[in-house]
């Protein structure tokens, strides 16, 4: 029997899309691309895989990918070169300070929920944060 050919289009982009959580797929795409920019996996002028490549790799509707790209382009995070591909914008990378803060903010919120459920008050939570930050900075 003939071997299955492995075909891929465009640069790989690690995406994990999930339909169980009720978050629309195009929003997950936007968030994850921003995350890759914020963490430095994607840098300014890096080329993003084509709409078709993302759709085929993730088995999602090409319109969904196009919608996410359009939104990111509107926000200035990515840009298109006519007849070429889609690239990460300089502005997208610098804007991502806010994105980076957001990632930390979300993680902190989770810790705070956990702490509150364990019956800790705001003062002790603040103390733990200061202590941890101090310990971390001195390393």
């Amino acid at each position: 029997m003939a071997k299955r050919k492995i075909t891929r289009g465009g640069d790989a982009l690690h995406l994990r899309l999930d339909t169980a959580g009720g978050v629309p797929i195009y929003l997950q795409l936007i968030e994850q691309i921003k995350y890759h920019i914020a963490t430095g996996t994607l840098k300014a002028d890096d080329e993003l895989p084509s709409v078709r490549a993302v759709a085929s790799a993730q088995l999602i509707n090409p319109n969904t990918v196009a919608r996410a790209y359009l939104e990111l382009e509107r926000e200035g995070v990515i840009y298109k070169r006519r007849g070429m591909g889609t690239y990460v914008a300089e502005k997208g990378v610098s804007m991502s300070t806010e994105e980076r803060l957001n990632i930390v903010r979300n993680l902190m919120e989770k810790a705070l929920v956990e702490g509150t459920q364990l019956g800790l008050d705001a003062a002790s939570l603040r103390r733990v944060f200061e202590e941890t930050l101090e310990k971390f900075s001195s390393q």
Partner: protein
Amino acid sequence: MAAAAIRIAGLVKTFGNHRAVDGLDLEVPEGSIFGFLGRNGAGKTTTIKILMNMLKPTAGAVEVLGQDPHIHEKELKERVGYISDNPVLYDWMKVEEVAWFAGQLYPRWDQQKVAALIEHFGLDPKQKIKHLSRGMNAQLNLALVLGHDPELLILDEPASGLDVIVRRDVLESIIQVISAEGRTVFFSSHLVHEVERVADQVAIIDQGKLLVCGELDAVRQQVKRVLVRTEDAVDFAGVTGLRGVQGEGRQRLLTIFDYGDEAKAQIEQAGGQVVEVIDLSLEESFVEHVTPQGGLPS
């Protein structure tokens, strides 16, 4: 407003006393991937067979690519790609013979593309059809249906009973078709989570009737779960759109259709405080749509 690839109006099909399709109205916009959802026996296959002129409607009308399938059957066969829920090929032929034979039926046939797909799927051209597994059979059908570059692809339960690799092939084929300008894919399924990834429009039918139809996100968001905190044994029965209540203590989870300001005010009036409004997946939303109210009798 985009043109409609499929238009169904007041469709009724009865088998004896049984109304398999019971007054169905549906429009499938051109350029969409349309998921036609329903439980087994909801009337999906019957509807599709009428679209393909394999059954005659008892009442109502259907239009496929602007034409009546009963009058323009031959022309539509060339423009529409169709894989039934139980595709049967000539099982004495070899894979390559079927590919050649199918090519004689279609004016826009692309033999090279079909050969490339057969190779991509890892099928042996010399193998007899009767020796193909269920999955290989499905792959061959996909190769044949993509070979004539259909304007509209109709798939009846395409992923049912197939392993994960072949289900991927099915979804990839759908994406390949839709990537060409102005193409439409209409597929029925009861595997809702797969539909959720790929479809942009969905319809849910039950007992031959349309329950809901529209953009996937709108259909999904029609149902919400609302987490409510309450002090006493309050009764939320008067809340508009209420479909069910889980829990009996201080925290209740209400399932509500078309949740909005009105329902929120009613919850507060009843003595509850809304803690969180939770979005559902399409699958959860589907279950709420097609399940009769109330749980199992205990």
